[in-house]
């Protein structure tokens, strides 16, 4: 093996620097794997390393890039005396490029200043101040109030309904626990006068947040991201997405650390921040790329938007119908619904309304409390939904399904 093993270890370090998880055990397995393949065949060498060191599809592109950069054939030695036997003789030389020092870049000052800078923390002293803040519209918050609201938000209790799983637990319930029955029967000879029972295990429903961050939502974006962050970070099984023209999954960012460290990273990743709104298209890409992966197990979807849609309302209606069919409950949260006299008259809102299970405001802390209470009490059955062939005269449907 000669220089191969040290190079392999160096390659492992490069992969770690690129964010792949490479435990020491895997490096050992990789070394063992290489004993079984002809490392003169570059393809086999590549696949042997790949199937040991990569564990998820998302890691394939960084692995490929690292492999190409690291395991380069040494230049100059390519056409020596035996051009045809080269593949047999010369394998892989010293790496020509140093692993990129990503750590140094990441350590850079996380852009301070700007609209997303960290406000000073402030606890509201009096009860009346807290009450006033509860009712105040998010759009009117000062930086200090945002910070205070954050603390209050963290105290909200999210249960998001529950569902019975297929798993059984011992305890009072409808099923007979035959295993325990048999054991006690064998022990006592007689059938136990008290038959052991079992019941279904209960689990909280998964929650999916899809939040509009387009231009028209700008005044609410910051507080709503706080809201998403406190849900995503505080509960297991919550997935978060933001969109304006394109959909971006932000679950990993929101899981990481405190909101004020998260926001700069977010604004970097979401390219069309504060752009136009295409809800239908965003939901379409959600349906294609994510729905089947995360809407299992009776998920509840919270779609947060003011309904100002520049896309095709037909498409929006189609996508809403589809989204509603694939989740347990579809809740539309609209910050404008808190304003007195607001009527959901925009084209987008009108197209979408017949297809949501709940239509609720999300403009102040009080509305969040209402939402939390509502979610905690979700019925186990799906709400009744209109049945019609897809894309069929949706706009003519009544708004009967809408609850306020």
């Amino acid at each position: 093996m000669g220089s191969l093993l040290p190079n392999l270890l160096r390659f492992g370090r490069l992969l770690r620097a690129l964010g792949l998880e490479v435990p020491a055990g895997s490096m050992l397995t990789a070394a063992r794997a290489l004993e079984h393949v002809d490392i003169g065949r570059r393809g086999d060498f590549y696949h042997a390393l790949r199937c040991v060191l990569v564990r998820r599809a998302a890691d394939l592109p960084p692995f490929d890039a690292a492999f190409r950069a690291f395991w380069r054939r040494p230049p100059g030695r390519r056409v020596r005396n035996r051009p045809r036997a080269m593949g047999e003789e010369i394998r892989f030389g010293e790496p020509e490029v140093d692993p990129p020092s990503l750590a140094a870049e990441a350590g850079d000052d996380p852009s301070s200043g700007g609209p997303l800078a960290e406000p000073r923390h402030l606890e509201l002293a009096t009860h009346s101040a807290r009450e006033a803040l509860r009712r105040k519209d998010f759009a009117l918050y000062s930086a200090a109030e945002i910070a205070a609201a954050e603390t209050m938000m963290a105290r909200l209790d999210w249960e998001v309904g529950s569902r019975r799983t297929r798993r059984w637990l011992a305890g009072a319930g409808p099923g007979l626990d035959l295993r325990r029955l048999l054991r006690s029967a064998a022990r006592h000879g007689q059938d136990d006068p008290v038959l052991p029972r079992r019941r279904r295990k209960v689990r909280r429903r998964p929650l999916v947040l899809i939040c509009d961050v387009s231009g028209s939502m700008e005044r609410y974006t910051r507080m709503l991201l706080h809201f998403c962050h406190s849900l995503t970070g505080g509960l297991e099984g919550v997935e978060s997405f933001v969109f304006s023209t394109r959909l971006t999954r932000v679950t990993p960012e929101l899981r990481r650390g405190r909101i004020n460290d998260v926001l700069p990273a977010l604004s970097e990743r979401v390219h069309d921040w504060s752009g136009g709104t295409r809800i239908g298209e965003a939901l379409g890409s959600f349906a294609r790329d994510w729905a089947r992966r995360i809407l299992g197990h009776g998920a509840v979807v919270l779609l947060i938007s003011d309904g100002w849609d520049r896309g095709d309302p037909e498409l929006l209606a189609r996508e809403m119908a589809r989204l509603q069919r694939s989740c347990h409950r579809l809740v539309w949260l609209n910050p404008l619904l808190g304003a007195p006299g607001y009527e959901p008259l925009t084209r987008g809102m009108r197209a979408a309304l017949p297809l949501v299970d709940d239509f609720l405001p999300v403009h102040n802390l009080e509305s969040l409390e209402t939402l939390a209470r509502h979610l905690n009490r979700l019925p186990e059955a799906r709400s009744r939904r209109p049945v019609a062939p897809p894309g069929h005269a949706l706009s003519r449907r009544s708004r009967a399904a809408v609850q306020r």
Partner: protein
Amino acid sequence: MARDRAPRSIDELCELLAGELYIADRGLATSIYLALQLGRPLLLEGEAGVGKTEVAKVLAGGLGTELIRLQCYEGLDVNHAVYEWNYARQLLEIRLMEASGTLDREAAAAELFSEEFLVRRPVLRALQHGGRPPVLLIDELDRADEEFEGFLLEILSDFQVTIPELGTIRAEAPPIVIITSNRTRELHDALKRRCLYFWIDYPDYEKELSIVTAKVPAASRRLAEQVTGFVQELRLTALYKVAGVSETLDWIAALTALDRSELDARTVDETLGIVLKNQEDIRAVRGERVRAILDRVAHPGAAGA
């Protein structure tokens, strides 16, 4: 096709798979070969219908060993994956003992919880399999819940299970384990760490065509080229549910059964439901889109490029 020994090189493994009519690319063959050599489970991920499950089947066929399949679903637990006691027989036995007045409590417990009353489920069967190690296929593990994954991890690290009433059962020869996942959720890292990993992609035109001709030899060459080209084009369209290789095979088998030797717009419209399983997708493609794709695949030479 059964062989007496395991393949000794990647080339031999490729041959073995080809003998079972499975066209594997070099990467997949390398992963399978290493899984066999290192005695590690192989985790296969990929979209639905790219032939993940098939790998286990052809491997069992090629190695001439038994395929033991564990289909995962939500709520799958030890009782359905590993073992269960045969309660009905146990109860009956107790009654018999009582009736004949031979019920001795100590002895009864030992007798009732003996191997005789044990129902063996796939995992236990794979561990207790005598002779040539079987292929244990753990299919769609992402459907099972996380508790089960943790339990599986335990089995995959030592190839043994403990039954409280009986003791520990250890595999003499560890089974060849193939795990598949459709990625409806991410599997746990601890489990992945035990496994070798391979992502199976949709095949390109050339590869899919050779799969089609190998699996449905009755189809005319022209039809095979057109259908493959058509499905390849469909995969480039934004659809909710992309057609897998199995759909291609179903489609061409159906067309061959209908005695078609060529694709035309009407035939496609009539049989589109075999390839696309989603009403919106069918509506989006039927008609104009079908004609446009047909125009492009009418000359298969150009379509494959």
